[in-house]
């Protein structure tokens, strides 16, 4: 028998496991070392260290009733549970619990697509449904619907949304929690609750209207531990007639300020999907030793020096890819409008037409698209992210053989904020001894109204020193970011308290409110201790 969870006696643990076996079937309770090892975080930056977060056992229910039984048994024995959907949020903990010794509740077997409504552009799914599953379901039935998928696409639709995961298309769809509509939750006392219109006696309008009547409580179940979500409704995107992409290049470093303003305008009007900012000048460092020397000089380069270099080499300081979805004529006009607007405002702007497609794609077209395009931009789940090569260069030899985790602070959606974040974080990275592309880092735009200055930090399966360095860098960076009002939107397990602690307004009123709720709703503290930085009362001193 595995070692029991903290605070649970061997006798109680054995009794609880027997009851779990009776509830879900003995073959669906995993307690051998070999089976439990499957729930290790494949990207853990604490691998093989005493702090690595490990499960004591796992249980895989297949029905809501079984989930309720699991929760009731856990209450009887004070058994800490850690629910996962498919456990694919690599870089943010994977399938491992935050509290070592927790029993993982693996919901992969609950993989029913309850409903997909083509006319109302919605779906209701269980936690074990992956993006591949939902996509396949839609394709097989030739429904004119798109999903918005993260990268890679093997994860759970429900799990990704609950972790505030993101995708790549239009703003209202790529915020995956924001695009959910109604959920079903097993509460910590084993009771079943639904939110929004799903709370009506008839759930005929489950995925049509989020709020139902009264307080909107669904937000309490994202990145939190107030229940186990067993179904969620989602809004899906109607298949557009066409897609096209265009790229804008601007010459000067400070042109990023105006460029962001205009791109924001386009997106706020619903004319574009997710923009993709980059610095062609930054990429030129690899082939331009003169530029590398300029960047490395004491005090760094001035804006004017970078502009002179960019002009001499004919390289844009910044670029942005714009994505258009809709009727072919409309999106052509929107691209033309974007060129006119930005061209008039930023001298020296250049514009490149990108790919364009009409839908549905034929199989031949899809194969072609797969080789030249990011499929996630057009709602097709894939695994191409794993085709990225090993990730080492002579300048940066750290191995990525153990994966990575992310430092992902949210900053305002302005060009000034990009420049300021790069200045501040550049110094913080230097202090932490981690290289950073200070003058050229561009934000990710997954979340609709804010930028994410995301950077990956390497994890090694073989070299704990790399992991220690990455963890130390994360802690230092998170602290500096918090001092500037930039909080992380997700966190690896070792960082949850640090990240949650940064949201400290009025003596951590938000965290104290969540703890009050936790004590009231889950007095035994059985659900996902530590998730979202929220700990049950009896563990509040320990933290992550």
């Amino acid at each position, binding site marked *: 028998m595995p070692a029991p969870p903290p605070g649970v006696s061997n006798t109680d643990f054995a009794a609880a496991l027997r009851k779990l076996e009776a509830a879900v079937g003995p073959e669906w309770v995993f307690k051998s070392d070999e089976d439990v090892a499957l729930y290790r975080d494949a990207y853990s930056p604490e691998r093989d260290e005493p702090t690595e977060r490990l499960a004591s056992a796992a249980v895989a229910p297949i029905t809501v009733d079984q989930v309720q039984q699991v929760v009731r048994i856990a209450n009887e024995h004070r058994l800490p549970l850690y629910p996962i959907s498919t456990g694919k949020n690599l870089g943010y903990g994977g399938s491992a619990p935050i509290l070592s010794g927790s029993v993982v509740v693996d919901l992969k077997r609950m993989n029913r697509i309850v409903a997909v409504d083509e006319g109302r552009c919605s779906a209701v799914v269980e936690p074990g449904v992956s993006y591949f599953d939902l996509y396949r379901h839609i394709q097989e039935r030739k429904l004119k619907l798109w999903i918005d998928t993260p990268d890679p696409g*093997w994860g759970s639709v429900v799990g990704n949304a609950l972790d505030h995961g993101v995708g790549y298309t239009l703003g209202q769809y790529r915020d995956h929690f924001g695009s959910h509509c109604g959920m079903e939750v097993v509460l910590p006392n084993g009771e079943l609750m639904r939110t929004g219109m799903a709370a009506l006696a008839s759930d005929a309008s489950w995925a049509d209207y989020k709020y139902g009547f009264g307080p909107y409580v669904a937000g309490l179940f994202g990145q939190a531990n107030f229940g186990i979500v067993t179904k969620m409704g989602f809004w899906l995107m109607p298949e557009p007639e066409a897609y096209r992409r265009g790229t804008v290049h601007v010459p000067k470093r400070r042109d990023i300020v105006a460029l962001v303003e205009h791109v924001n305008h386009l997106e706020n009007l619903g004319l574009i999907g997710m923009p993709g900012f980059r610095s062609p000048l930054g990429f030129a460092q690899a082939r331009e030793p003169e530029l590398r020397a300029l960047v490395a000089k004491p005090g760094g380069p001035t804006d004017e020096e970078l502009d002179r270099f960019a002009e001499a080499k004919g390289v844009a300081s910044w670029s942005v890819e714009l994505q258009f979805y809709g009727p072919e004529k409309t999106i052509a006009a929107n691209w033309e409008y974007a060129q006119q607007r930005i061209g008039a405002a930023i001298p020296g702007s250049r514009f490149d037409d990108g790919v364009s497609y009409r839908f549905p794609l034929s199989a031949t077209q899809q194969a072609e698209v797969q*080789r030249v395009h*990011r499929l996630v931009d057009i709602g097709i789940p894939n695994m191409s992210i794993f*085709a990225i090569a090993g*990730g*080492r260069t002579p300048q940066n030899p750290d191995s990525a053989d153990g994966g990575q985790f992310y430092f992902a602070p949210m900053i305002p959606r302005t060009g000034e904020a990009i420049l300021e974040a790069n200045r501040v974080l550049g110094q913080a990275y230097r202090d932490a001894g981690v*290289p950073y592309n200070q003058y050229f880092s561009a934000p990710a735009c997954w979340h609709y109204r804010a930028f994410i200055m995301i950077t990956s930090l390497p994890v090694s399966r073989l070299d704990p020193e790399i992991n220690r360095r990455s963890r130390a860098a994360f802690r230092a960076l998170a602290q500096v970011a918090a001092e500037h009002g930039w909080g992380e939107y997700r966190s690896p397990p070792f960082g949850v308290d640090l990240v949650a602690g940064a949201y400290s307004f009025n003596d951590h009123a938000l965290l104290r409110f969540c703890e009050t709720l936790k004590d009231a709703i889950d007095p035994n503290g059985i659900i996902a201790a530590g998730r979202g930085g929220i700990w049950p009362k009896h563990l509040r001193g320990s933290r992550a």
Partner: protein
Amino acid sequence: MPNRREFLQTGAVVSAIAANGVIVHSAHAVGANAPIALGSALYDDRYAEGRRFAAVAGGRGVATRPLDDGDVTRSYEELEQLWRREPAAIAGFTQFGPMFVIERLALERGMRLALRVEHCAARPDALAHRLTGPRDTLALAAGFDALHADWPGLMATIAFHVAHDDSPQRFSEIATPGLALPAREPRAAPLAPFVHYYAPHAEQQGHGPALDGPLYSWVVAPPLERG
């Protein structure tokens, strides 16, 4: 008749090794566990070594499937469906990412990585092969303390002799002197590169395209069924 080492050092093709029975006899000599029956082989055709691995594996009658420019998506989808119906062993010669994906899928389907060989330039002037696998298989490979230039073919052959053994895995390392880490071959018609927001750390730092990491030969297999 040359002995085994002399035979290997001649650079003769490895498919001939099996034909003359050297490995087969060795495998039978070192352990009682039957070899895993492979159903297919996956390979990265951007490397000459990957194509060689596939040629030898295909010559032994299994279906071979190249990745799509290093992308494992299609194979993942096929195996995900196939393994829902029945587990089936598969060999591979890929970069880390595709091996990782297939390994994770295999674990979810009750299978495991039975053999993992990392091919990396870890020794001066030699390509190191770091093997993790069953005792019998490693004992077999250890007989070849210096692999010759056709090591991808030898790896494919060894893949067919991975013992069906669930005992704790062992580690060993052997080398091929005078060789470097395989390099991807330039495409006649280069494809537009994938641009990922989760780019490797090195690329994010403006250091240009990341170097290839190690390559891996591997075997995924169902667990040993005990009577």
